């Protein structure tokens, strides 16, 4: 367990305040989702209740308002995940081109089922809905990157590369 304090550094905090200014006076709650993304990337890829409380304090809103939102959107993880979450699209256009086979391949290769995390905390497999990449299926997303037109061989290479990099893959736009 990390004992990192749930607090942004001054640079990240300044970024949050900059994002809040994108919305009119008094409407800064609009920045909630963008700030939750930053918090998730910063604090181990998921939103603990401490993290949500902290985000509430930045926006000066109630913690429940943060939880309400965090629990609605599929990109927010309310439980810890592996360093690399492999989000495989399972929707029909991808299914037609081998999404089920890709999931089965990953499950076999990593020795885990969808929704589980490998013992070393490296990989989590998740199935997700259409990622807007149907023409290049089967595909998966890991962090902010799309990996498309996957074959067994390309999947092997991807897993190797991620293992070698050995770092948390996150989304951050800023």
């Amino acid at each position, binding site marked *: 367990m990390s004992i990192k304090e749930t607090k942004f550094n001054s640079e990240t905090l300044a970024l949050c305040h900059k994002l809040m200014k*994108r919305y*009119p006076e008094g*409407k800064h*709650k*609009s*920045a*909630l*989702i*963008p700030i*939750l*993304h930053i918090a998730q990337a910063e604090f181990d890829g998921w939103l603990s209740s401490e993290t949500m409380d902290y985000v509430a304090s930045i*926006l000066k809103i109630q913690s429940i308002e943060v939880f*309400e*939102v965090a629990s*609605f*959107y*599929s*990109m*927010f993880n309310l439980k810890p995940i592996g360093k690399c979450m492999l989000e495989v699209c*399972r*929707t*029909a*256009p991808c*299914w*037609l*081109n081998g999404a*089920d086979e890709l999931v089965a391949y990953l499950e076999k290769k990593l020795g885990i089922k969808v929704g589980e995390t490998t013992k070393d905390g490296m990989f989590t497999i998740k199935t*997700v*809905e*259409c*990622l*807007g*990449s*149907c*023409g*290049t*299926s089967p595909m998966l*997303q890991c962090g*902010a*990157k*799309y990996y498309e037109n996957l074959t067994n061989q390309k999947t092997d290479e991807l897993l190797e590369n991620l293992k070698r990099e050995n770092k948390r893959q996150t*989304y*951050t*736009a*800023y």
Partner: protein
Amino acid sequence: MGRKLLIEHVHVPGIETLEVYRSKGGYTSVEKAIKTMSPEAVVEEVKKSGLRGRGGAGFPTGLKWSFLAKPPGVARYLVCNADESEPGTFKDRYLMEKIPHALIEGMITSSYALGAHTSYIYIRGEYFYVARILEQAIDEAYAAGWLGKNILGSGYDLDLYVHIGAGAYICGEETALLESLEGKRGNPRIKPPFPAIAGLYGCPTVVNNVETIAAVVPIVNEGGCEYAKIGIGKSTGTKLISAGGHLNKPGVYEIEMSISVEEFIYSDEYCGGISGGKKLKACVPGGSSVPILPADLLLTTANGEKRMMTYESLSDGGFATGSMMGSGGFIAYNETACIVRNTWNFSRFYHHESCGQCSPCREGTGWMEKILHRLENGHGKMEDIDLLWDIQRKIEGNTICPLGDAAAWPVAAAIRHFREEFEYHVKYPEKIKDPNHFHKQSFLSSKQSVTI
């Protein structure tokens, strides 16, 4: 070769930068509009163009703009819908990723027309890397004076921001999108009031799709009447189609709305035919929400006319024998695709994405998923098929937002056109245990009849 108004320069190296974009005539619509036209004149050109919303509903854009309330002293907003989550649809991503300035230019010209001084691009969270591309392009546009205070010395000010979502198909519905943009759960609002009267922060708001806004650029540059010369009837201009499924050349194509479906699927200029040397079995021409059509009804209408890639032709015959243009997410199925499995897959999607506010949608989508799962896995009964039909009818039209209809239509259409295949699943449970059942023995039913 058809004319391309949106993605003509997509392969020009560096087109994502302002400099190269500008060298290809970029930002002339902003200059023309701000320097030589009144906002009303811009709206007038959009009306003349006949442009229809590219997000799915096909509502005339100029008309929508003219509904925008303009109470004095109240801010107005333009919000671009870049949520693009309709299964089968990936055209907006392509446009934003490859030519981000096309959207930004469209946003500036459109914001000017609507009198908005702050505008947002709401982009789905999974497109994080695209958001980064847009942010960079916006920074460039600010630096060059296309955004910010006193644009081109005209006294017109505009701020443009990217706002990132977090994974929820329902946030593509415009009022859910506005809720989400306000930092809340994406629960659709009850209408009226419509966003044109009370939208973002309770202020008059226009929500438009990415492609709709990008199309304003050529409309202003060339004039609405010129734009309207392309296409057939009320389907004017060009349309981006994202083609996927069993096709030789899946991808994003800009078509003039005057080509036939057959040409789109089989010609080398577009999809290049069905992959693996197989036969076309069915097609969902406009994203997962629109009715699926068997091959014969896709290529020719019930009256025996060639089906065209236009709003009118795709919907010819209504839901009995037609479908819809929708968002342009074109999904082709070859003879090995199982329609029951496909329908189950879509039902699971809608169940997963229902926001849960209305019981017919929340419960009905779950029931449909369950029944379809049972049919697909060889545990279904004949009565299940009629039960499915009943459930979808009870959802349609009884919900706050159109997601309910979107969940009902694919089920209805699958039963309408492929009932025989559902029955086959009940009759031969042992044959369909393998999820790839029709790979080994394709199922092409006898001449399709419209059963209900």
